[in-house]
């Protein structure tokens, strides 16, 4: 456990020691800030049937920034170690492969959470100034941020997997970007293809991040996406673990 902790701390520090972290933070806060500003001004012009929180988490801006950050966060995880050769001292220390994989995943997860914390200020400012609630209920906050964690886990695990496949960070970023985009649009296929069976439609619906976020940001907690994202994360991390172990045979 102590080794895992040491690895995790090193991963998280690694983010804040590199310029990438700050670039991602700035980019992300700019886009989400603009998103928030536009939603509020838009709602100012005419009465709306949804809350600021719902608008914020269901806009094009939000999804644009959301899909882009994962490759940026995860591309360096394994690729950099392969490229710089630091994987050698790392894996000749008495640590387990699984510890390394999990530490890298949770390191990215911690950074991801740190990315979202400042956005809470937006709603706090809104409430201070307007004296109106930014969300329909407290549950809507919990729901949308909880959904962020679930979606984040899944997409981060996909990014981890992409990074373990190559020693080139750019290639890792492109793989994870394509994979995440595909997964993201998989949920929209049901609206495009009309001739799919209802079973297929339901199955595709499980991938619909937009739909899930829509539900959760209204404060409705559905257990199906929870189970889905947790089990998909576990599955992709297992794949990552296997791919990481396979490096020994590919060397």
């Amino acid at each position: 456990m102590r080794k895992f902790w040491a690895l995790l701390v090193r991963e998280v520090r690694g983010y804040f020691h590199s310029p990438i972290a700050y670039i991602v933070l700035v980019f992300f806060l700019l886009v989400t800030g603009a998103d928030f500003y536009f939603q509020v001004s838009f709602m100012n012009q005419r009465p709306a049937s949804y809350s600021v929180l719902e608008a914020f988490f269901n806009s094009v801006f939000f999804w644009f920034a959301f899909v882009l950050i994962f490759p940026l966060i995860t591309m360096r995880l394994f690729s950099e170690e392969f490229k710089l050769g630091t994987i050698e001292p790392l894996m000749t220390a008495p640590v387990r492969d699984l510890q390394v994989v999990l530490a890298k995943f949770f390191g990215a997860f911690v950074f991801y959470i740190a990315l979202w914390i400042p956005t809470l200020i937006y709603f706090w400012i809104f409430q201070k100034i307007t004296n109106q609630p930014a969300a329909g209920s407290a549950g809507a906050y919990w729901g949308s941020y909880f959904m962020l964690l679930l979606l984040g886990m899944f997409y981060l695990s996909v990014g981890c997997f992409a990074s373990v496949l190559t020693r080139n960070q750019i290639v890792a970023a492109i793989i994870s970007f394509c994979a995440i985009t595909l997964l993201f649009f998989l949920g929209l296929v049901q609206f495009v293809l009309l001739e799919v069976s209802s079973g297929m439609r339901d199955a595709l619906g499980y991938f619909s991040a937009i739909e899930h976020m829509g539900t959760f940001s209204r404060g409705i907690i559905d257990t199906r996406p929870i189970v889905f994202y947790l089990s998909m994360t576990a599955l992709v991390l297992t794949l990552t673990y296997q791919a990481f172990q396979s490096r020994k045979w590919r060397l």
Partner: protein
Amino acid sequence: MIKVENLTKRYAGHTAIRDLSFEVGQGEIMGFLGPNGAGKTTTMRILAGFMPATSGRASIAGFDVFEQSLQARSRLGYMPENVPLYSDMRVTEYLDYRAALKGVPHRRVSERVGDVKDLCGLRDVERKLVGALSKGYRQRVGLADALLNEPDLLILDEPTIGLDPNQIRQVRELIKNLGKQHTILLSTHILPEVEMTCSRVIIINKGRIEACDTPDNLLGQIRQAGGVIVEAKTGTDNGAEELRKISGVRDVTVNREDDWEVFRLRVESGLDVREEIFKLAAARHWALRELSQRRATLEDVFVEITHSDQIGLG
């Protein structure tokens, strides 16, 4: 301490090492020599648990490096070639991190990190970023890292590569001192270093062990055990032939430098022919300005054993 049996590693397309077997006993400093691409790094990586062998077995302190990898790795200090380090960490921070990874007990971490910093002369740079260190200091950080968990066995892959002569001397002294408490397997290209530090030497070439013995025995074994250099003004053309007639001389080559001729004699091992040469020169009235014997070095051993692929080096 190390036991290697029939170790073979095949990469796609070529075999890096074949059928390697050797043992390194407790407290030995074993030198690992070979031309580039001979399989040294591969062998060391397998021993360090970084990659598995294709076939064969290897164990460290009785633990199989593959089956019981964690136990084997925790008894080991490994310094990879070129010492890859996280450049964004500070020296002390890096060593603290490595100590935790290697399972150094929490309350002993600062003591151990302090010790290795003293031992490797890292006090001056302890607060610097690893990325800002010179090659020599990076090398020392790698060595300090390898020593953190007080390992029974140290595996050092080219610990002095890229260092200046002073640093090489410092590292050599360090290794010699470490050899008093640790078993060491080290690879290097700097042969005088091996002669000075190692108790035994393995020479591998093209993935096979060509020789495994003490440096002294190896020196005794080679055919061209030594040579004599004679610089003389003979005034004739048959100086070389005259020299060749001396018993024990196997071969003579001549170079001209202005009026002087430089003869290089290969002599059978254990013979000193300098007196004979002096008598010859005196009898023929040659002017002599150098008459010296060259002791065979490990370099000669190395070149002789690995000669086949050292084209153009003769």
